[in-house]
């Protein structure tokens, strides 16, 4: 029952609801759908030009046209990025979460520090690491030199730049994953460990069979976040190498071709759709795998 009057006033909630709906449809849902539609047309960014339906030509061009080699490279690079980030970020985050969860002194301080990069934002983080990784005077190079007698170009190296970007991405978001694992760990009932202890389980067994099973939901969330995040991140790339030195990913290509390249909009749209399909496949696979492991207690 609607308690706030009858007649005209019955429509007030609906009218107010129209505001978020309109904003959402106009700025997110609409553009998403339009991107899919554009991907089948020859639309350009020249005002007043119409668009013509050209079927799958854009998709064909993504994979088999003049510079499609580069685009295929960035697709492979994106997948590599996603795998490393997902595995390493969640691995480190789980380790840190388990450590912090065993009542370490200053646990709140630790988690605040690890979360700090998210608060500082990409612009600051990228610049901080550009300074650390400065090839001429950067502290990391001095460290390398002192330890191994070796120097690196970091963000200016054709072979290594992308690895350093992966490092910065993981450095930035590890704290986020760690928090989610911590929340999962704190919801595991203590009695289960005690029961296990009485039954004589080893530490590893109780981790493997109790902790690992019960934090499966946090795992699912973290996997989703890192897959979607890694597949669509390009702000770190934009802020560090700006796509030079073999560091372009799919999301970066979409950006580049939309805003700075040719005026063609069909190809970047097609690329967005391909990116979306890849994310979809990985998300579905990951969720299926994770759901299998989730247990009730």
């Amino acid at each position, binding site marked *: *029952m609607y308690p706030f009057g009858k007649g005209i006033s019955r429509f007030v909630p609906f009218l107010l609801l129209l505001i978020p709906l309109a904003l959402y449809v106009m700025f*997110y*849902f609409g553009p998403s759908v339009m991107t899919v539609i554009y991907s089948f047309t020859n639309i350009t960014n020249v005002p007043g030009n119409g668009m013509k339906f050209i079927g799958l030509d854009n998709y064909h061009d993504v994979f088999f046209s003049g510079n499609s080699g580069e685009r295929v490279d960035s697709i492979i690079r994106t997948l590599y990025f996603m795998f490393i980030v997902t595995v390493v970020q969640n691995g480190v985050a789980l380790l840190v979460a388990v450590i912090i969860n065993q009542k370490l002194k200053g646990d709140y301080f630790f988690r605040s520090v690890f979360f700090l990069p*998210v608060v500082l934002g990409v612009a600051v983080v990228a*610049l*901080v690491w550009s300074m650390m990784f400065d090839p001429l005077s950067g502290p990391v190079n001095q460290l390398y030199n002192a330890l191994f007698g070796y120097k690196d170009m970091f963000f200016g190296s054709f072979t290594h730049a992308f690895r350093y970007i992966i490092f910065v991405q993981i450095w930035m978001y590890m704290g986020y994953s760690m928090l989610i694992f911590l929340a999962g760990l704190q919801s595991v009932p203590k009695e289960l460990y005690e029961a296990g202890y009485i039954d004589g389980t080893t530490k590893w067994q109780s981790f493997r069979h109790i902790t690992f099973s019960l934090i499966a939901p946090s795992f699912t969330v973290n996997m989703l976040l890192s897959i979607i995040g890694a597949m*669509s991140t390009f702000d770190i790339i934009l802020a560090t190498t700006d796509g030079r030195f073999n560091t372009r990913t799919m999301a970066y290509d979409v950006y580049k071709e939309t*805003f700075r390249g040719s005026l063609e909009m069909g190809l970047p749209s097609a690329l967005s759709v391909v990116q979306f399909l890849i994310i979809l496949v990985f998300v579905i696979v990951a969720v299926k795998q994770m759901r299998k492991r989730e247990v009730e207690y």
Partner: protein
Amino acid sequence: MKQSKSAKVLSYAVVTLLLVLYIVPLLLVFNVSFKSFTEYLLNPIGLVSDIQWNNYKDAWTQGNFSNYFLNSLLYTGVATVLTLIVSLFGAFPVARNYVRWSGLIYLFFLLSQFLPNPMVAQFKLMLAMKQEFGFVGYDTKLGYILLKTSGTGIVFMMFTGYIKSISRELDEAAGMDGCGYSRYLFQIVLPLMKPVIATGVILTAIGIWNDFVGPVMYLPSPANYPITFGLKEFRGQYGNNWPMLACGIMIVSTPLIVLYTFIQKYIVDGALAGAVKA
């Protein structure tokens, strides 16, 4: 269960190592920001010997940070407030089933998390808006604020969940006393939602303040730069003059670090609530 001593030591060692990896870069930046360029070139890592306070003054004026700071404040403030109000408009009737097809509308909003990247069409939309109206759209403050205002996503989910925990009888009592819908939303529901609003404000504000890609795409004129983009431009201007750039980094991040130390509990909890419920 008892902890073995060596395990405890190992734990501390791992965490301390990571802590170093997180704190040392910031301390180094802080240190470098006080050096003169020559001192930096001669000794990039060592502790500063002759503190150059002027670095900060120079960076502040030459980087035009006061303008960018105000712009960031404007975008973040207005878009955050609007996002919260609009999310309330969306979340309340959906959580209470006061409109038809509430379930479907909820799903429709939930879909926002899984849509294809809208970047291309968004850009075209912003250009078209600019051409059509002039005062909104590409390269306008209003256009950017509107783009950043969304009644969807994590805030909407958090609000919907929280409103469900507010007693329905309250609605009925207020309705019986003749309270109107919008007045009820702002005078009764809004104050009751303080905890979830705090998290919503923080998450939204951090997201908008730190947005780096948005301004690069939609705000090309210097008069509209927010601080993140200002920092990028500052870097272009100063190349590898790290003492100057370090000042820029400190100027941009100090307010955030100070704010973070005061409200970190809410941020950390909020990030959690947002992530787990998303």
